[in-house]
């Protein structure tokens, strides 16, 4: 069965490469609509990596919430805000080169740390299935679960109030 595991590994590395490329594209593409689509591809790649880690539930939730809802939200916002077709305004500000250098430096430091520390090679216990996650959510993490539902309700109402059309408070200058 050796070739199969090799195949899976190659697949995972391929997915990593694709999602990195998509991430770079989503950062650098001038047309914001294409950038959002590139981000969707990157997130799908990350969901693939979650599958590689046998965390199926997380992968499916990631696809459902990110690619299904957040990207759609972003595209709605893009359509409501600016005229994408005009190429006149430059997409990136002047800090390009400097930030690139700093980012590369940060990345090299991180890689050096990651390389130097000895990580455990093999995965220890079997992957947590959906039922274990459910038990844990209702068991030790029930407080966090309730807090996050409160936060989501607050966000839900807050976002609607902010984005509502006729806000009496702010009147255009």
């Amino acid at each position: 069965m050796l070739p199969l595991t090799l195949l899976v590994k190659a697949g995972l590395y391929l997915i990593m490469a694709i999602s990195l490329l998509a991430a770079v594209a989503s950062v650098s593409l001038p047309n914001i609509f294409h950038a959002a689509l590139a981000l969707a591809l990157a997130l799908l790649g990350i969901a693939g990596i979650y599958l590689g880690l046998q965390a199926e539930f997380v992968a499916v939730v990631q696809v459902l919430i990110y690619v299904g809802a957040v990207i759609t939200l972003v595209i709605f916002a893009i359509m409501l805000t600016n005229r994408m077709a005009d190429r006149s305004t430059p997409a990136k500000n002047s800090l390009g080169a400097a930030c690139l250098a700093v980012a590369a430096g940060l990345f090299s430091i991180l890689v050096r740390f990651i390389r130097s520390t000895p990580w455990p090679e093999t995965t220890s216990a079997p992957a947590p299935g959906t039922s274990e996650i459910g038990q844990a959510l209702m068991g030790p993490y029930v407080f966090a679960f309730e807090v996050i539902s409160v936060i989501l309700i607050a966000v839900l109402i807050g976002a609607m109030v902010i984005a509502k059309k006729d806000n009496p408070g702010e009147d255009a200058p």
Partner: protein
Amino acid sequence: METLDQIFVLSKKGILDFLGTFLPEWVVTLACVAITIKAIAVLGPVTMMYLTLMERKVIGRMQNRIGPNRVGKWGLLQPLADGVKMLTKEDIVPHGADAVSHFLAPILIVIPSLLAFAVIPFGRGMTPVDLNVGVLFFIAVSSTTTIAIFMASWGSRNKFSVLGGMRSAAQMISYEVPMVLSVVPVILIAGSLSTNDIVLAQAGWGGLKWFVFTPWGFFAFIIFFLCGVAECNRSPFDLPEGESEIVAGFHTEYSGMKFALFYMAEFMNSFTVSGLAATLFLGGWQGPFLPSWLWFFLKTYALIFVMIWFRGTLPRIRVDQLMGLAWKFLMPLTLVNILAAGLWYFTEGAARWLITASILAGSFWLLTKLNRGYTPEKRVYLFAE
């Protein structure tokens, strides 16, 4: 009966054993995966072709006309003729259109509908991929079509298609929430997300154990099916491609094979949604005498007949009614339904039926009262008397 029931599983095992004799072990596992993929890749488009024919025949019969019968014996070759016509039609790309999204949209709309086939249990032991997050996988995959519809509508640089895209995105999102919530009771009772376990949980008593015969199951089935119909942009909810108002919605600027892909995605979606509805509520491949896969296809095609029946009868509903139905009627009903399913889980015997039925009937009545449309006050005519 047993062999007929397992005919596909046995034939696949036969092929694998045959391959196993002279191929190394890992190639055989690859072949096993390849056979399943090939089966789905054939099943998908073929069901789509014959669903178009079935739709035109059934709607024809409802309107006292015959439907296609020129090509082939009873019009059986009509889908092939449509396919050839679609292939030979010129493929027009509007000037100034966003080439990337215009080209990618039809592909990205077909992929999720094909992926959705992976978790549907076609028969006993015939679930292509038995994920233990099956139902969630189906919902996640069917939610990604929104992006493809956005790409189609924005890519074809046409006001009608952007309007259609916006409408269909709003509809898809607002009908996805009740759809997901209507599946929760089934998972709660069946105790697992895997479609195969759900079907096994409905076994027994010659079919009376199906979830649709419980009060919460009946409501959940109606809501799931309605949301499924809305998800495929079909029949009463086909606002995105409302021919009368916005030409053809988000696939206005598509012609030739690209349009056929949109068409195929719609029909494959309606097949998979009906298949899942049958699996979750009508006991998938459970059935007394006939082989299991035959039961599955009978139930799925019965549900597809209902979808076509909707198309033959119901007029298109307005956007505000569409949104109102989703958010003000289906959403609260599903939440109450989850409560009812929870109570069903913890009570026993007659009390179980009484409590759940009364809660659901009461909430249904209350919601219809709340949603009673406001009657606009008498119009005041300024000039006309």
